[in-house]
């Protein structure tokens, strides 16, 4: 307490001393910077010096997926890490760099790929001719206009981030697994960090929910989703390249994970599980036409809840942090930045808790659903 007091006061004084300097020196640059960012966001009107700041667009672009990894802006020009675009077009597979679109997301810039004209609107790539025929609403919902666009298997920002995290995690865990060959004593280093988490998943998630007899079979799956979600949650919180992707807050990603849990649950369902769905014990037979659809809906709502919970929690956290940052630009003053910064810091710390918590909840509920499917009842 005593040690920390002095530096804190010192920091406070130093900060206070710097505030006027920052505020005097920067408004012009700051506004130019805001203008630049807005110009980037709305490339169409690049000639305008200043435009109304649109927080919704900014947040949408940050939490959404993208064909390129935006790193920074330099003198009005965005610096991006271009990712490969992989398209399954009417003429077959096409692979090219996202640089071809020149950051255009408005459908203005036409790219010619081996004779096929393509445009990009809100990160969705269309055939240029079919794009012209679409209304604005159809363009906005272009993700599902499969007849107007080629199938897109691009390595997007989220896919890139997922590749990276999977490779890094694989090698980390490989190193840990190897360390057990050499070190037969108590675990140390990375293994000492990882092992409590592994035993936590085993003793507090798998064992109580799946049961002593069957839990071992599902341990690899539970451990994989736990670490995959947790690490990707954390990667999403790091606000600079090559992190900052909102992978776990993407509903397609959570859909796949929830769907895999659904498949695992369904495949491990035993006689009792199916018996409860198609012939609920204690319910008269004539209620079956009502009961069976209800039970089948129940089967589907469980993974659906998993999908929505992870997506909503992570996306909400990102939106709050981005909104707090946007406050600086909405109020158009640097004076709001200490308040905004403090809140962002608080939210970031909270989000680190949420990152672990959501990974835990997803794993716990997966274990619970699997446990329900494999439970052996000794009833009636």
């Amino acid at each position, binding site marked *: 307490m005593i040690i920390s007091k002095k530096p804190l006061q010192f920091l406070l004084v130093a900060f206070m001393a710097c505030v006027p300097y920052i505020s005097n020196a920067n408004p012009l640059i700051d506004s130019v910077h805001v203008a630049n960012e807005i110009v980037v966001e709305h490339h169409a009107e690049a000639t305008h010096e200043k435009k109304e700041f649109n927080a919704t667009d900014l947040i*949408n*672009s940050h*939490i*959404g*997926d*993208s064909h390129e990894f935006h790193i920074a802006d330099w003198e009005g020009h965005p610096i991006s890490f271009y990712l490969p675009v992989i398209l399954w077009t009417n003429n077959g597979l096409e692979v090219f760099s996202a640089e071809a679109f020149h950051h255009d997301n408005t459908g203005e810039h036409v790219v010619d790929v081996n004779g096929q004209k393509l445009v990009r609107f*809100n*990160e*969705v*790539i269309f055939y240029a001719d079919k794009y012209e025929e679409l209304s604005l609403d159809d363009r906005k*919902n272009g*993700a*599902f206009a499969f007849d107007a*666009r080629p*199938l*897109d*298997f*691009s*390595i*997007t920002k*989220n*896919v890139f981030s*997922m*590749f990276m995290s*999977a490779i890094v*995690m*694989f090698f980390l*865990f*490989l190193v*840990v*697994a*190897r360390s*057990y*060959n050499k070190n*037969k004593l108590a675990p140390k280093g990375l*293994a000492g960090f*990882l*092992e409590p988490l*592994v*035993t936590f998943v*085993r003793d507090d998630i798998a064992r109580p929910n799946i049961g002593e007899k069957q839990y*071992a079979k599902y*341990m*690899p*799956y539970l*451990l*994989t989703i736990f670490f*995959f979600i947790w690490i990707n949650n954390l990667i999403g919180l790091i606000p600079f390249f090559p992190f900052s992707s909102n992978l776990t*807050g*993407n*509903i*397609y*990603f959570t*859909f*796949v*994970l929830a769907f*895999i849990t659904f498949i695992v649950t369904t495949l491990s369902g035993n006689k009792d599980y199916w018996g409860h769905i198609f012939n609920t014990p204690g319910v008269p037979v004539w209620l079956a036409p009502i009961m069976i659809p209800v039970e089948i809906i129940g089967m589907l709502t469980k993974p659906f809840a998993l999908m929505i919970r992870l997506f909503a929690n992570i*996306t909400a956290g990102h939106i709050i942090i981005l909104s707090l940052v946007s406050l600086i630009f909405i109020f158009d003053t640097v004076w709001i930045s200490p308040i905004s910064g403090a809140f962002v810091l608080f939210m970031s710390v909270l989000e680190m808790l949420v990152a672990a918590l959501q990974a835990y909840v997803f794993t716990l509920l997966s274990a619970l659903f699997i446990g329900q499917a494999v439970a052996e009842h000794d009833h009636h």
Partner: protein
Amino acid sequence: MQLTSPESLIFWTTIIFVVFFILLRKFAWKPILGAVQSREESINNALASAESARLEMLNLTASNERILQEARVERDALLKEAREMREKMIADSKAEAQVQGERMIEQAKTAIAAEKNAAMAELKSQVSTLSLDIAEKLLKNELSNKEAQTKLVENMLGDVKLN
């Protein structure tokens, strides 16, 4: 959130996750879970063997204590027996000594009495012999001359008073 093309992320997530899962299961989770489990077992075994060693130790101490107790009891019994035996022996020998002594005293007394009687008898015979000798010598001495004899007779006659 701006919904982008779903097929991209769904396709890649499925592939990456499944491959990641299979690789991790083979190369990470199996060795890690195996190592954790085997270590837990070894810890449990070590604890169990320590506990059994402790119990054995306890048993050993208890049996030592019991043996010691038994030995102590035995020693006490032995000591008691010895003491009793000693007392009995003392008492016995005392009684025997008394009887013996009494008998010896009795014998001594009888012997003394016999000796005394014998001595008395001897003395008596000795005395009588001596007396006779003395008397003989005296008579011889007295009757060696006429005068003395007459005197004696006169003395004797003088003593004998005629009534």
